[in-house]
């Protein structure tokens, strides 16, 4: 059963718009709960309200309505609660004029680390993101992917209970991405709760225990990947081509095995088969009527 770690209760945030009296509602009464040790994915297209939601979860943005609660800790508006959180903002937040090491030492100090535990925490974090060999170089000399990994290391250097990552894999190559995903999995195995935003659904599908799909600041669906697909993914497509060059046959079914079996009983003989199982993309499409990355 889910042991709640983070709970968002009907949170709402809107912004004033230039030259308009109407406000832009970025997050619109969002509620969800994240379990302890869970990797929770917040999935949505650009402008869906992911960053604003994370911003409220990390105590940077004050909700206009509703509240954010960490079990046993309280609201992130309290400094002590923020001390248990690790945060990697979407836009890089590192000092270009400091080395990777100096950056992490500075951030670790903000969280109260001193002396030997600081030194070991910093080297552990550098190790975790694969920057140990570049630790002495100025951050301005890092590549984009390295900066992103340093940004991430700053979120975990103080061994937080909850890690909030806002698009940690944006703009990194497959190798860096694998390193980052591996790190998230390791955190999760150590019992750290991870909330993670992305609009890469393969990533969410691979990594997340549960996923919340949001658009226009509202939660559209919530569950494990399988649950979401079963509930919103619709039917599996079985595409069959037969000998003799007839047109492709497309069967929509919830039971592709049975559909294939009955198709094989008919002639002409089957030449090729493609089974398209619904995925998060289809879930999103069926929920919003548009694809995730448009």
């Amino acid at each position, binding site marked *: 059963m889910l042991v709640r770690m983070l709970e968002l209760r009907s949170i709402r945030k809107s912004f004033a718009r230039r030259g308009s009296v109407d406000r832009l509602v970025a997050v619109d009464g969002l509620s969800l709960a994240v379990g302890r040790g869970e990797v929770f994915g917040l999935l949505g297209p650009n402008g869906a309200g992911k960053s604003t939601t994370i911003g409220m979860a*990390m*105590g*940077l943005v004050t909700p206009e309505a509703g509240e954010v609660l960490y079990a046993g800790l309280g609201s*992130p508006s309290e*400094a*002590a609660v*923020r*001390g248990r*959180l690790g*945060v990697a*903002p979407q*836009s*890089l*937040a*590192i*000092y*270009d004029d400091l080395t990777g090491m100096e950056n992490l030492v500075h*951030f670790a100090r*903000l*969280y*109260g680390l001193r002396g030997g535990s600081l030194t070991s925490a910093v080297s552990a974090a550098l190790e975790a993101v694969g920057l140990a060999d570049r630790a002495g170089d100025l951050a301005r000399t890092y590549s984009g992917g390295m900066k992103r990994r340093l940004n991430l290391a*700053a979120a975990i250097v103080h061994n937080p209970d909850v890690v909030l990552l806002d698009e940690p894999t944006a703009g990194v190559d497959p190798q860096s991405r694998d390193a980052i995903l591996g790190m998230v999995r390791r955190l999760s195995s150590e019992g750290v709760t991870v909330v993670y935003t992305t609009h890469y659904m393969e990533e969410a599908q691979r990594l997340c225990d549960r996923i919340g799909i949001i658009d226009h600041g509202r939660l559209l669906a919530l569950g494990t990947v399988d649950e979401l697909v079963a509930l919103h993914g619709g039917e599996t497509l079985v595409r069959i081509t037969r000998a003799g060059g007839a047109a492709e046959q497309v069967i929509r079914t919830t039971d592709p095995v049975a559909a294939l079996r009955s198709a094989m009983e008919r002639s002409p003989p089957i030449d090729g088969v493609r089974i398209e199982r619904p995925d998060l993309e289809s879930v999103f499409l069926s929920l919003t009527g548009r694809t995730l990355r448009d």
Partner: protein
Amino acid sequence: MGVLAIAMNDIRLLLRDKAAAFFTFLFPLLFAMFFTFVFRGGGGGGGAMKVAVLDEDGTRGSARLVSEIEADSALKARRVADSLEGRNLVRRGEVTALIIVPRGFSEAADSMFTGGQIPLEAVVDPSRGAEAAMLTGKLTELAFRQMSSAFTDRSRMQEMLEGSRRRLATVAPEGEPGREAFTKFLDGADALSQELSRRSGDESTNDATSSDTAAFNPVNVKVSTLAIDKTGKPRSSADFAFPQGIAWGLMGSVVGFASSIASERRRGTLVRLAISPLTRGQILAGKALGCFVTCVLVQVLLLAVAMAMGSQVGSWPMLALAVFCAAAGFVGMAMGLAPFADSEEGAAGIARAVPMVLAMIGGGTIPLAFMPPFFETLSSASPFKWAIVAVEGGLWRGFTLREMLVPCGILLGVGAVCFAIGVRRLRWE
């Protein structure tokens, strides 16, 4: 077409950046208006140099000069009872100079035609040499005006001529040709005076008279700077230059601090600080502490160099107090400026403009005496001015703790107000 597009876009971006737009359009306007005020103020109704006046002579003549000084629009005079009181006012920087009408003033004035020089003394604040020159001119002019008015004041003229005749009698033996000539001259002057007073009704004391008579110089204004050492030996010029330098150094730290907040905001690290377990108050306290330490270091560095160049510290505790309060006041100011340095460009604009304005109204560039009264009032709130006063107070003005309270109190007060404004207005994202 492309060229036009670039031009239009640049202008639009400039207008969007409030600080940049301000410094491009509004600031030069204010600047021009400021100078208009300054130059207009230089003539009539402008700011006045603060002076103390001591009448040691105690005669009708000296009283007349004192009231002329008091009436003069270029001077703002207050009477003092003795030299010590006057010197203390100069030392504390409350007045620019002490004017002394010395004993024997009237007597000398009365025997003016026989070569006696009218003595006047001025004890000037050593850090305000520029204004001393103006004071000499002013006093000469006032003394002249007295003399020229004497020509049309029959009784005064007679008094003066009588004095000159008596003096002539004592200095030159009868029958000497020079004496004969002078006696004739005095008679002539007598006749002239008679004639002038007959045609009275004229307001004869205009400036033309004084400039016509400026060819000979019967007024002797003896200007000395206030010696503050017990030994009375001359002070090092570093004493005056370095407190000014300190104020500029403080301004530098302030600008650095304001732009550091702007650049942390742009880099996103301000957000990271905001979500750390520190309260916003603690973050600002940390930033302020960094600025404070810089401010102290700047001052220590400059004072060390000043001492190497010959300055001697009057009072270490008072100097330490001054350094502390100046640093604290400027930290407050930095905090107050931070919200207005939205971008690093904005901070750069502030870096150029604010020190200039503050220095000007604080007496750093243009002597306050040349400014309209409005700016003098404004300068009383300028940390620039009070930092200089406080540091000078500890360095060579020999301030007591009580005298220190004014500049230090103002520095801390202005700092606290600015700090509060800055904290309330600061944007974190």
